[in-house]
């Protein structure tokens, strides 16, 4: 390849050899298939531990890697182990990073641009940890009805970890934020293969950047960030979708105006007001903070439960951009039972919930759990459909059969 960039010639030359060997994805990766239950399909995906440092993960894409956690990962606790956290890269990711050579350039609207080593980042301020949910903006896209194109995630493009690093504002202070600063933009080591294609760069408003819990993190559950999760450093914005948590952080750029780059101005956007699937021209806003969500993890759709016996249901919930306030079990004919909440690991963490149905008298049709956060946001009954399938937070329902 000329300079790593893609031309028609290298592209065809590169593909030729591989085309001769085309074994089945599932066979090649070993493991087995899992059914994501996407309406209308295709729904089967390989489930395999074939990726470095990962346990059994659903393979949405080998290259660049898109790995989803099977829902069974969320059956216990609130922390998602590193080997089961979802993986999401937009463009090819570097597969090796030399720590001593890595620099983070801090520039743009700053008093004096700096280029920081990892040790300089680590000594930029107090070391802090925050437990926060990392969720892809497109989590659950594959369940959209009507369906939309994009990565066809089930609900496993999420996880909750303890992130450790320094505050972004302390790193910014090394360069000194200049007057007129409006946003802070991040870029990682992952770059497009083609000239002129948009690099995956993302920015957040200044007031978010200066928050006490917005980090430049190197630790994930008390381990160094794995490469697949953005070694050596990634941005952590608790309460905001993962798209802002830029991985393999290499550049921090202070902007004085709006960000017109592709992944902020053109992509990762949702309708400003609800739309129907037929609507074409509508205003959009950037997707930012997360809404509340809840999941039943003790049972799956179609499971059989004992008739005449009590039933304990369990799961996880999140408040999104604000702490979880409550979780209710809801079902047909006005069924609504408040659930009890487990230990609180902070406003941006998963929280476990539990509820006991005193006696199962028949099938439990279309039951779900509905989370509300302290800001008053409540999960809706029906999907706020949008053409990119972002920010799904409709109440997820299952049916249990009594026998």
């Amino acid at each position, binding site marked *: 390849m000329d300079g790593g960039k893609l031309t028609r010639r290298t592209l065809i030359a590169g593909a030729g050899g591989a085309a001769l060997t085309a074994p089945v994805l599932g066979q090649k990766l070993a493991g087995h298939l899992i059914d994501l239950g996407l309406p209308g399909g295709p729904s089967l995906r390989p489930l395999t531990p074939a990726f470095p440092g990962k346990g059994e993960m659903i393979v949405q*894409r080998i290259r660049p890697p898109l790995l989803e956690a099977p829902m069974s990962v969320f059956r216990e606790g609130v922390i998602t182990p590193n080997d089961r956290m979802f993986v999401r890269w937009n463009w090819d990711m570097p597969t*090796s990073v030399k720590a001593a050579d890595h620099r983070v350039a801090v520039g743009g609207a700053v008093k004096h641009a700096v280029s920081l080593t990892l040790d300089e980042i680590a000594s930029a301020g107090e*070391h802090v940890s925050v437990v926060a949910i990392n969720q892809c903006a497109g989590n659950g896209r594959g369940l959209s009805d009507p369906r939309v194109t994009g990565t066809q995630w089930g609900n496993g493009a999420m996880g909750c970890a303890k992130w450790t690093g320094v505050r972004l504002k302390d790193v910014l202070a090394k360069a000194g934020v200049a007057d007129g600063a409006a946003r802070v933009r991040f870029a990682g080591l992952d770059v497009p293969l*083609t000239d002129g294609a948009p690099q995956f760069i993302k920015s957040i408003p200044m007031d978010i950047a200066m928050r006490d819990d917005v980090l430049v993190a190197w630790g994930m559950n008390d381990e160094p960030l794995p490469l697949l999760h953005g070694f050596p450093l990634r941005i952590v914005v608790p309460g905001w979708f993962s798209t802002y948590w830029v991985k393999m952080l290499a550049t921090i750029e202070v902007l004085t105006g709006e960000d017109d780059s592709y992944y902020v101005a053109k992509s990762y956007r949702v309708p400003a007001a609800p739309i129907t699937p037929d609507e074409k021209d509508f205003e959009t806003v950037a997707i930012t903070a997360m809404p509340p969500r809840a999941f039943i993890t003790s049972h799956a759709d179609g499971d059989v439960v004992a008739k005449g016996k009590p039933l304990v249901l369990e799961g996880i919930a999140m408040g999104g951009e604000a702490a979880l306030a409550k979780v209710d079990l809801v079902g047909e004919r006005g069924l609504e039972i408040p659930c009890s909440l487990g230990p609180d690991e902070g406003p941006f963490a998963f929280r476990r919930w539990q509820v006991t149905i005193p006696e199962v008298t028949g099938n439990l049709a279309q039951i779900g759990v509905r989370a509300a956060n302290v800001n008053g946001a409540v999960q809706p009954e029906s999907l706020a459909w949008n053409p990119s399938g972002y920010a799904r937070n409709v109440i997820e329902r299952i049916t249990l059969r009594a026998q």
Partner: protein
Amino acid sequence: MKRLAFILPALLLASCDSAPQATFADASITLPDDPLDLPDLPGRDAVIGNCTACHSPSTMLQQPKVSREKWEKQVAKMIEIYKAPVDPAAIPQIVDYMVAVQAEQAAAEQGNVSRETSGQAGPKGGLEGV
């Protein structure tokens, strides 16, 4: 080393009082091979030649069934936004191929659905509620 852990439920940020040293070692991984697995239908070579440099075939194969026009738009998006170097002559073959693959997938899905419903009544049959 003494550390503040998450003892207090309300504690959002835990500061480590003894400034634990962050140490950074080099990191490197090997990703699994991408077998470029695509169904054997006419146009497969055009798809392999034009559409697999930036991403695995699963990117195309996992999509829900969409119209021919939508596939034309997808290819145009790859060219216009992501600067995919696509041979213009190959575009109709790529679109034909994707439409044919999705027709096969839909037929397979139909097969699965009818097999499932021919068995015992699904969870939605005869419900009574709690």
